[in-house]
């Protein structure tokens, strides 16, 4: 079952849509906000609340890359791997993070501190290469800056 807090937030969303199913994406956002990711249990909880099947919820959940269907670390590093960041050398940044944290795309550090994911474009191509950690954008990256950036996330 959805937690009380999750239900409350979702009730607000339901006021804005013509029928419950239309709030599927909002529900996934709410659950991810509270639980960090969307587990099978989270999918079932949403389905029950919106009165649709778990498969319908999962069909939507698995479509969107910002809905995490696997557990992620406390902080998610989203490293842009799109064209402008390719030209400006995102791969060097990826290697640097890999060297420091021993994780590649799709992996989580053993202490559960970081997950690194590739992200298609952060819309800050004039400051490539760029990455985002949680809600913070870091731009004009070079390998030397990575240490001090990571340091801020415990």
């Amino acid at each position, binding site marked *: 079952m959805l937690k009380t807090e999750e239900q409350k937030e979702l009730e607000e969303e339901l006021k804005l849509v013509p029928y419950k199913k*239309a709030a599927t994406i909002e529900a996934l956002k709410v659950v991810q906000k509270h639980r960090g990711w969307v587990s099978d249990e989270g999918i079932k909880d949403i389905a029950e609340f919106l009165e649709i099947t778990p498969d319908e919820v999962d069909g939507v959940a698995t479509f969107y*890359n910002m809905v995490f269907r696997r557990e992620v670390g406390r902080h998610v590093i989203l490293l842009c791997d799109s064209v*402008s960041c390719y030209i400006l050398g995102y791969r060097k940044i990826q290697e640097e993070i890999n060297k420091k944290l021993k994780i590649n795309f799709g992996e989580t550090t053993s202490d559960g501190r970081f997950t690194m994911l590739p992200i*298609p474009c952060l819309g800050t191509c004039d400051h490539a290469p760029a990455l985002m950690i949680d809600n913070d954008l870091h731009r004009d990256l070079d390998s030397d800056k990575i240490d001090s950036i990571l340091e801020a996330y415990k």
Partner: protein
Amino acid sequence: MEKPLTQHIKPNEPPMSLNEYEKVGGYKAMQRALKELQPKDVLKIISDSNLRGRGGAGFPTGMKWSFVPMGDNAPKEKYLVCNADEMEPGTFKDRLLLEGNPHQLIEGMIIAAFAIQANKGYIFLRWAYKTAAELILKSIAEAYNAGYLGKNILGTSYSFDLYLHTSVGRYMCGEETGLLNALEGKRATPRAKPPFPQVSGLFGKPTIVNNVETLSFVPHIVNNGAEWFKKLSLTGEGGTKIYGVSGKVKNPNTWELPLGTTMREIIFEHAGGMRDGLKLKGILPGGASTDFLTEEHLDVNMDFTSVGKVGSRLGTGTLIILDDKTCPVGMLHNLEHFFAQESCGWCTPCRDGLPWVEKILLSIEEGDGRMEDLDLLAYHSKELGPGRTFCALAPGAVEPLQSSLKYFREDYEMHIKNKRCPWR
């Protein structure tokens, strides 16, 4: 030089509050439209201005609005949606307007919604634009407090509610009908057209989807008139354009310039030219899904018609520059990896074709390519082209591919003959 869209945007400063915006003439166009004009008058001004959609396709805005059913027999519920998804790689121009002047966009949306008599609107915002999200929410709240949003705006009979929807990713959300499916809480697959969204869009109701830059122009055109707008451009198409440049240039950034400014001026004057020691090798003029152009095209005017004439598209007007020290095959592999990944899987040519293209490019990049592979890439360029898929993703994906085969053929062949990447 007039810069209507960015005149009140100062770099690294927060955008104007509602009060500040009103002091420089903000919300006057909205007041005039709602109190003095009929919806058809607003439509006429916009149609006369020849404003064309700034999201990439360049469809005439007035014509789009004119398809919405109007009058007593029209559906009571209609929607206006602002496409602020800006997922095209290499594109960062709407961010400037969203973070720099959200009230300009909100005013444009109220006027546009009034013109089509929509009572509900959404700003569909890319998830990564966290700052913009905060600023938009704050500005919407200010507009509600001032009585510019909500029931009976300015004491008229017109009501309009505006909501912010932040996306959860995927390139497909930038596609008009995919975006509408996402707003309905579904997978962002494209819809068959017809029916067009103007007749049957969000929740089956008439819906207009316009880009941020397009809607931000609306207050200025209502204030200053269609003729004023037409005179802003260097060529016949009307208005200014937010251009941007990324890649290894000295000063990558965004600028508001007259529509039709040449690529040479944008790249060499505004972006400061190439970084020292680098030469320009190729240009994607309007985002990842546009055909490559090269040095010989530098004097082409960046407007819809002129860029079209030399075989590419204005697209989003944000140029991605390929330099001579970056491998074009590697860049293509990067681009097609993106398109293959973002294919929604709805239709076969795109779902199966793009990963195939990606694999071929990788093998060439790694030195395992064969000459026949170039024919295979050319074949895909045709078979994934316009008319074979539901939406524009695959046709867009093959635009840089087909043009790279034309302009960088020698580079492909060198990879294949030498069995390695010459840039490594």
